């Protein structure tokens, strides 16, 4: 068996794709279990399903007020 690697791929303007992780810990310390082979972690802060990307980064109308 090859050693398992965690790979993070940058998607400019969108999320980070993460392969091989077991959990993602949010800023508030809550941990979300990774349940698929690849997950998209939100980077824009607009997702309503943190820590996961829900594609809100492309919806210009849903920008959160500063």
């Amino acid at each position, binding site marked *: 068996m090859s050693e398992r690697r965690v790979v993070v791929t940058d*998607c400019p303007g*969108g999320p980070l794709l993460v392969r091989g992780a077991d959990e993602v810990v949010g800023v508030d310390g809550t941990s979300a279990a990774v349940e*698929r082979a*690849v997950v*998209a972690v939100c980077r824009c802060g607009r997702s309503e399903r943190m820590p*996961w990307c829900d*594609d809100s980064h*492309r*919806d210009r109308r849903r920008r959160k007020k500063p």
Partner: protein
Amino acid sequence: MRLPEPCGPLSEGVVETLRAQPVGPHAVPEPRAMGDVTYPLTDRDFQLALWILYELHYRGFDDVEDPRAEWDPLLMVSRAALERTYEHAVRELVAETPQDAPALEDLGDTPAEQVTAALVRMTARSGPSDVAQFLHRRASREEFRSYLAERAVYHLRESDPQSFVLPRIGGAAKVALAELQYDEYGGGRADRLHQTLFARALASLEMPTDLAPYVAQATGATLASVNLMSLFALNRRLRGAAMGHLAAFEATSSLPCERILRGARRLGLPEAVQDYYDEHVEADAVHEQVAIRGICAALVEDEPDLAPDVVLGATACLAVDGLAGEVLLESWRSRRDAPVAG
């Protein structure tokens, strides 16, 4: 599944041929009828004939006795004739679609950059579709059910067309497509197979879970949107278009699924219906990135000549699915406006 009821000379030709001759070679269905098709994109008879011929490559029909019908040379001739007409109509529709996008060459230095930028641009313009907004805020339970019924023609076979592309591409693009399909096919869990999730949603509303009744009532435009995937996936020369189609499909799925999920909650529809759309919000946000950056970018890096086809497939997806959505909305509108009988 049994052969669907034909609805015109083209589908009748195909059905009669498949029924009447238990063994091939089968006669070519009446070619004359093709001349009568004015707009193949919404012509139910035309699309049903093509859908039946494609279905021979998927799960087939219980009442087609000859298992060799799939590769029957004369049925291939029929399929090719229908495909030619359909592809021509799709290319015309794409050419008519207003393009405010810059030329590919101006979008980046490499084909991969160009295609990525083109796909992101093209799919960014579309907010949640009118259909999704309608389902979110206005649809009645009955209208929601009719939406599920219409989409069942695809979702009960979800992702199957794209599997035909796997052996047709190589390297990183193949790996990325396999990764996406693995997720569509349940990520190693039979109970998470997306087709099954959809069947479970149908069952929760006491709707049938086999394809036949849905094909029997699907509009020409819905059949066209499903046939488009088979057209691209079953013709190796169109593999670029197949992957562009997939990218556009995935990139315009997540936000609408969120809307549809809220509509299902508003109507208090069963958990299984919500689960299907819930799954697709996150899954398709991932698939979009994998399809655009993993599959399409890698594909054109490998085969730069496919770049225009990738864009063609994506544009065709948005245009043809848009058409199917309009037809559906129009049917809801006209039913709401119809005077109540009695």
